[in-house]
């Protein structure tokens, strides 16, 4: 199946190349609309005369192959584990809270001590709870399969956007393939915590597509759809709603600067707020404005937008960043053609959403990759230019035997690029995309069964907070309070979210220190704990050494320290009780 899919892509590219260039027409010029079109640049690809026999079939096959390939890659990670990948513990508890509360929004979640307001946008959590209630699938499996399904559907949503924004089928197919394979389009979506992110991402992409249609075509249908999809985005994930908002703002600045555009935009914004009111009004009624103020104040201290943009490593490709390279080439081609929408969109993602930059930027990045192939690579391979070495020196250096690129170059280049992106995707973040091992679940089950219900546990895993699956899942599986867990704290003003992150990081640094480090941490942060939980797993934060199990120095120190007593030492973790 993947081979056939790749072949379809290559055939399409070759056809495009040999069809005399009709498929490689210009990127639609948003800034300078052509005289024949008024404002809107939506492609009516089906009627293009340049496609050869059965073009729609080839087009559909290539797109289906891209979606299937993306689904296959995503599934390979999810089905490779018997537990939700990485995070999701908090949403797991929240979904059970919903079930226990008869699907009415509770005031607080039972997660990690019961003091966190149930203020999270609830759509994905409702979906998981319903999925687990209405199907034979367990709640844990719902947290594996639902994000996978929705993330695969995001490729289809992206196709709708690409078809709207790009002018040729070559560009659309390449962009969809790039989106299907670029790691950051799915890494954070297929995890357990993707139960909310994946829904948010899909609805955000669809919202942007409808906004573009609204600004370029007009019509109430697009306004209504944009409002509905925007509300669903807001009900799924606040960060994705912000992505949709500033992306629509960008499109408004380019296409919607008219009286009609302003009215439409205001109507859509009002519609979004009204449709999402059952959630935010409920939260306001129960907790006031505080949770939203706290959430608005969250920021990732390590994400400097300028640095992110300069690094240009947002795709998380572990090998050579092929898709990022194509995107850079596409951005350059766009600027040459005075089409600034997509480059500005990438910059806006970095500046306005530095924490989610890699994820949300995967949308314009994939579109730019399509433009690079359409506007740079295919035309160039059709008519290669003379280069530095050949200029003026044909008499000396190996001359070209025949004009034009070798016939094998385009298809083989396409196959190599697709295979390379696929390999890069499969090895992307494999350590992050793992679930809790049975041994560690056993250790947490022991904590649940053998420690007092009021016990306070300090988890030291050596991980960064957003990849610390142990810290997130312990409160869910053990039912005990984890004193350094960050998840859920974004809705609390005290302690501040970045202070919580700082405290988590400080205690993880104790992994390479001794018992005194824990004592100092407790003194500095004013937190107390009864147990220390040290997983016996290799930390998955990138700089950790492969094969090293967590925290050997701290474990050795606690073993020797008379202030601590080993109460559990299994293959998954060691638990120390504080005397």
């Amino acid at each position, binding site marked *: 199946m993947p081979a056939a899919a790749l072949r379809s892509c290559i055939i399409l590219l070759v056809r495009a190349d040999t069809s*005399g*260039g*009709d498929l*490689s*027409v210009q990127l639609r*010029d948003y800034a*300078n609309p052509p005289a*024949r079109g008024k404002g809107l640049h939506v492609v009516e690809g089906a009627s293009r*005369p340049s496609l050869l026999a059965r073009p729609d079939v080839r087009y559909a096959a290539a797109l289906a192959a891209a979606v299937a390939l993306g689904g296959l890659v995503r599934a390979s990670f999810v089905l490779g584990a018997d537990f939700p990948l990485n995070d999701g513990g908090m949403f797991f508890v929240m979904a059970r809270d919903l079930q226990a509360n008869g699907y009415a929004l509770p005031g607080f979640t039972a997660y990690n001590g019961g003091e966190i307001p149930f203020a999270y946008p609830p759509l994905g959590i409702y979906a998981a709870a319903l999925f687990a209630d209405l199907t034979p699938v367990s709640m844990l499996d719902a947290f594996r399969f639902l994000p996978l399904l929705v993330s695969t559907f995001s490729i289809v949503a992206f196709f709708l956007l690409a078809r709207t924004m790009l002018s040729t089928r070559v560009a659309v197919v390449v962009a969809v393939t790039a989106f299907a394979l670029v790691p950051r389009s799915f890494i954070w979506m297929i995890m357990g915590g993707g139960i909310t992110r994946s829904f948010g991402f899909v609805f955000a992409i669809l919202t942007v597509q409808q906004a573009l249609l609204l600004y370029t075509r007009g019509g109430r249908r697009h306004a209504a759809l944009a409002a509905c999809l925007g509300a669903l985005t807001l009900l799924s994930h606040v960060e994705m709603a912000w992505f949709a908002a500033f992306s629509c703002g960008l499109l408004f600045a380019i296409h919607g600067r008219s009286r009609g555009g302003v009215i439409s935009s205001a109507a859509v914004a009002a519609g979004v707020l009204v449709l999402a009111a059952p959630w935010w009004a409920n939260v306001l009624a129960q907790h006031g404005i505080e949770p939203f103020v706290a959430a608005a104040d969250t920021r990732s201290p390590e994400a400097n937008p300028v640095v992110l943009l*300069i*690094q*240009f*490593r947002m795709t998380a490709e572990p090998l*050579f960043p092929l898709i990022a*390279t194509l995107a*850079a*080439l596409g951005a*350059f*081609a766009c600027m*040459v*053609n*005075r089409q600034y929408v997509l480059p500005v969109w990438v910059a806006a993602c970095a500046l306005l959403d530095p924490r989610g930059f890699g994820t949300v930027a995967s949308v314009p990045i994939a579109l730019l990759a399509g433009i690079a192939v359409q*506007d*740079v690579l295919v*035309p*160039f*391979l*059709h*008519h*290669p*230019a*003379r*280069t*530095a*070495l*050949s*200029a*003026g*020196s044909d008499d*000396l*250096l*190996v001359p*070209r*035997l025949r004009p034009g*690129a*070798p016939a094998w170059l385009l298809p083989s280049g396409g196959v190599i690029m697709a295979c390379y992106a696929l*390999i890069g995707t499969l090895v992307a973040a494999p350590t992050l995309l793992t679930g809790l091992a049975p041994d560690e679940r056993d250790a947490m089950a022991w904590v649940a069964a053998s420690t007092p219900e009021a016990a306070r546990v300090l988890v030291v895993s*050596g991980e960064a907070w957003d990849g610390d699956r142990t810290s997130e899942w312990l409160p869910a599986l053990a039912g005990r309070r984890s004193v350094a867990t960050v998840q859920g704290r974004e809705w609390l003003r005290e302690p501040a979210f970045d202070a919580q992150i700082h405290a988590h990081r400080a205690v993880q*640094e104790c992994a*390479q*220190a001794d018992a005194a480090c824990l004592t100092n941490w407790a003194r500095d942060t004013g937190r107390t704990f009864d147990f220390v939980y040290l997983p016996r797993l290799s930390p998955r934060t990138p*700089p*950790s*050494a492969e094969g*090293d199990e967590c925290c*050997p*120095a701290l474990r*050795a*120190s606690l073993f*020797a320290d008379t202030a601590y007593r080993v109460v559990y030492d299994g293959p998954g973790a060691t638990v120390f009780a504080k005397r």
Partner: protein
Amino acid sequence: MQQPRPARPPRLVVIEGQRDTPPETRLSPTAYGVAICFAVALGALVRASFVLSQDFPLSDGGLFFVMAEDLQHSGYALPAFTSYNASDIPFAYPPLGIYAGALVADLTPLDMLQTLRILPLTASVLSILAFHLLARSLIRSQLAVVVSVFAFALLPRAFYWMIMGGGLTRSFGLLFALLALHQVVVMCRSGGARHAIAAGVFAGLTALSHLEWAWFVAFSTPILIAGHGLRREHLRDACIAGVVAVALAAPWWGTVIAQHGLSPFLAASQTASQTSANPLVSLLSFHFTDEPLFPLLATLGLIGLIAEVAGRRYLLPGWFLACLVLEPTAFGTVAMVPLALLVACGVTGVMLPMLEGPARSEHPGRILPPRWLPAAAAVAAVFYTLLSAALTSPKTLSAMTSDERDAMAWAAANTPSSSRFLVVTGDRWAIDRTSEWFPALTGRVSVATPQGYEFVPGRALEQKIEAYIAAQRCASSDAGCLDAWRARFGEAYAFDYIYLPRLEPRNFSTLDKDECCAALRAALLRDPGYRTVFDGPGATIISVRPKDAN
């Protein structure tokens, strides 16, 4: 409504319209000179910024430091063995750089350590000028020459291994290799025995400096000759160059053969197979430029490579692939030469035509690129590569701190001269400055240091590396790991002391702020079989108690 289909469909991307226009851009002599000087100055600045920010040779060089002192002590006659690490390591290393280091230290106010900082830096900067000669002989477009010189000056891997202390030999190897290849190209174009002899002299100096660069010259020469068409006179000149090179290097290889036979060379020839990376993995990862940000130069090189293949010009792609296949160990370093030329092809063959666009007369409705874009793109590219070069591998391009040198001085002053140390750093052997400098600064044996063993027969290097890797794994373990290590490798690796630096490992596989070996240090401090004899800010030295003392 469809537009009438033009004979050649208009494209906003300009390549098509430019395909018959040679991208050569001739610069005024002043502009050309200023641009080359600017490139060389930038390259020198980046290199110097690393070297001059430290008061000790960067990273490695301990072995050459001792060898240079050996030369001074023997009155500049080649000794049979080096005194490094009190082992029977033949003095078989190509000695030109080591002679240069010893002479500079003898004849100038610079001491030997300062020489190991300044000489590699100087040779590395001169290599940019040598590359300019090579690029100018291969490329007619002056703009392309300028681009390639900028690329070579700022490519991290073009200087990364050259400016370290161990660059004493590598940097001279690169310098002479570039000069030799320049003479090969001139020889092919102009003919004449003069250039053949010059090529032979530089090739001989390359062989006297560094074997890897000599091998690079050896396989690059036929490729460049083939690129100019295989003619009888080229083959004749190449033979002359080869004879001159072999004759020039004879005093070295003749001495080594007379003293040790062929075994050091046979051992060295096996080194690559023992240490090389998988060439396919190197090619697939395409990370060999070591650019810490977005790999802009690697990308432009890749675009240039595709442009050359698309234009059916296979010289540079072939040379690049030859580096991968024939020199997998040092692929990232030697491939910088063809890569910098490919960058020029990418810029002049793909990027510039995009900016210039097809003739406006041909496509009157065409949108012209913004006027500011070419200048902005050029400035941005230079600044980006400069930033990237300045950021490159700062952890590896660091020197031994004064604290660690103090710890080693303590070991030299307070331990018996026959004592044997196990140095555990958590590093990889090729960048483990502590393991390499320890024997040089303390005069004590470091039982797991692999440096120098490439010339020892009997697969000695392979065994050393195996022991080294196993020892470093104990960094996150306890005393039992050391016991197992000792049992596995036997009496030949017996040690009296363990040296644990208090530094961050530089192999990028541990958390940034962690100092080396916290777990092992904590375990040994509690273990009655060990006793801490020195614990300073640079290192902890722990002695092994005799078993009957327990």
